[in-house]
């Protein structure tokens, strides 16, 4: 073990100054970079995003076309790296489209949750009183109902479609966000700078979004990251049940469902979506954990 050398005054002072100069964000990202797991997750997700973007312009085959002269339930081959499905469609193309759908649903849901959850949470936490009571009671009542059940019913009522699936999942997912933001707003509103802003005549909207929100951004980003895998999983689950996005669009859930039926014949068709889902969900969770560690002030060393 190396001998411990006390820092010189200059080093010590320099270190303190340097540390004070580093902003919250840079500091957080520096810690995130040190977290190997989160970094690996970030790289994987970047690749996945690239695949999804590429899929907008190009896939090896049209994912919806039943290819002529191609066998169904084909195993991996040079022409079809992941094989073909029960109708003879190229699985790689369908998986790429599935990645696209998953990311759109994940990020889209997260955006809805952010907008609704943050606004409701800020209003409840800042104004307190009856408005907070109404919101809190509402959340507490609906918190007990399983989100998946609400999502299924709402989705059936709204009708099929990519937008509707996001709305159906958000219907319950916003409540966690609202609770978190409410708690943050509750504590931040007591800070002296909020009082100072109020004393300088700032309007309520300005205080909410200009003063409280920026100070709660860390936990909000972490929570928004955790919403993405939940949304992806819910979408896959709905598609697996056959309630998901309409055919012929491919979702990892619907591919898995078709693969399950063909499991004795062709195990690969089940394997690809299961792998893709597991790794993607893990990656988002690792990233969320990494972000939480990086931005949670209690974890700061």
């Amino acid at each position, binding site marked *: 073990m190396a001998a411990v050398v006390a820092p010189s005054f200059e080093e010590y002072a320099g270190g303190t100054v340097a540390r004070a100069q580093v902003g919250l964000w840079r500091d957080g990202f520096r810690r995130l970079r040190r977290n190997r797991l989160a970094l690996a997750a970030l790289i994987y997700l970047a690749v996945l995003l690239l695949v999804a973007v590429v899929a907008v312009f190009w896939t090896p085959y049209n994912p919806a076309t039943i290819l002529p002269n191609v066998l169904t339930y084909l195993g991996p081959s040079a022409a079809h790296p992941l094989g073909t499905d029960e109708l003879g469609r190229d699985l790689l193309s369908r998986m790429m489209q599935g990645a696209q759908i998953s990311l759109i649903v994940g990020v889209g849901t997260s955006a809805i949750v952010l907008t609704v959850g943050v606004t409701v949470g800020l209003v409840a936490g800042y104004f307190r*009183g009856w408005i907070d009571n109404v919101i809190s009671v509402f959340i507490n009542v609906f918190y007990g109902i399983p989100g998946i059940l609400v999502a299924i019913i709402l989705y059936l009522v709204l009708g099929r479609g990519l937008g509707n699936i996001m709305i159906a999942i958000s219907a319950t997912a916003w409540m966690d966000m609202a609770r978190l933001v409410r708690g943050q707003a509750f504590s931040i509103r007591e800070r*002296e*700078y909020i009082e100072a*802003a*109020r*004393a*300088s005549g700032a309007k309520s909207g*300005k205080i909410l979004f200009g003063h409280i929100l920026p100070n709660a*951004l860390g936990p909000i980003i972490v929570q928004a990251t955790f919403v993405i895998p939940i949304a992806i999983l819910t979408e896959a689950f709905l598609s697996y049940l056959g309630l998901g996005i309409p055919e012929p669009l491919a979702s990892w859930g619907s591919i898995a469902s078709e693969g399950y039926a063909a499991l004795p014949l062709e195990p690969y068709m089940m394997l690809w979506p299961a792998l893709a889902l597991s790794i993607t969900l893990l990656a988002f969770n690792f990233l969320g954990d990494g972000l939480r560690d990086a931005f949670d002030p209690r974890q700061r060393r």
Partner: protein
Amino acid sequence: MTAPVLDVRNLSTHFFTDDGEVKAVRNVSFSVAPGETLGIVGESGCGKSVTAMSVLGLVQRPGKVVNGEIMYKGRDLLKLTKEELRAIRGRDIAMIFQDPLSSLNPVLKVGYQIEEAMHAHDKIANADIENRTIDLLKQVRVSDPTRRVNDFPHQFSGGMRQRAMIAMGLSNKPDLLIADEPTTALDVTVQAQILELLRDLNEQTGAAIILITHNLGVVAGLCKRVLVMYAGEIVEEGTVEQIFEAPQHPYTWSLLRSVPRIDANRGHRLLSIEGLPPDLIALPDGCKFNPRCPFRIERCFSESPPIEQVAPAQHAACWVTMQKAYADMGAGTITDTSPGAASGVHPRRRQPLATVAEAADVPAVLAEPEPVAEPVND
């Protein structure tokens, strides 16, 4: 005399807690003339800050202004709507707070926060705001303001943050600036600079200043008139000379006696006021200072003394003082004299405790056992 910029009449603010009704401010009346510097002193929890918060309508639940009038330019602030009051806050009456470290939003640039204070009101034209921000920082003597506007609060030292707060308070050219313990969190040398700055700004801008502090040295250095508060009431009011040289209320006298003097005899123990301030839920009968007062008489236990004139421009709420004052003025005397009067000499018969000039020289921070903020290079 010109019309006062602020006229507070019989203000009472209570807090409705689970333990009972905390009567934090009771029947407080005072006025501030344009350009005047008024000090409000008293120990922690005596209602100084709550008075200021009441003026700006910033008292939060469970607190509530239960009585009184706060007249600003002929309008009662207590009768305005929230929006009307918001329009006055920061524009006509500005406030700066005790702890400049926590009064600035840590995630927003200093310049942005000052600009924001101007954007909240339409008093300053939008085109001028950016330049005015730099001018303001220059005015409060922040060096290199063009670069500093882009700094975050943590890049400012304690004194500079308070300067930025003052710049923010003055940004809309208010008629009245309420400074709530503006120097308490700062070290002594920076304290002196901030006070000097406030004094200069008062002369330059003509904005009246209400300075709230528990530090008598700070009051002596800045204010022309002083209110002394105890347990939620004003117990004495007078010019700064009167308060320091001829205090008429035993509480004021005790406060002054407990200021450490640089010229005091080394062997002398620093005197403190015995006992604790009363519980604001269960106040004592009669004069609220009676449990701690060395001069109390029988009457002090049963009747609360009203605040009355005891000398030109000086008012106090003390039976003993009033009795003496009436006698001096040749008016009728109050007969129930001193069966309970404790030992000690009444302030009125004493030599002046300190002159204003002396008090201002006192290293006032010594009176404060509170830790001093981080060292700053201001």
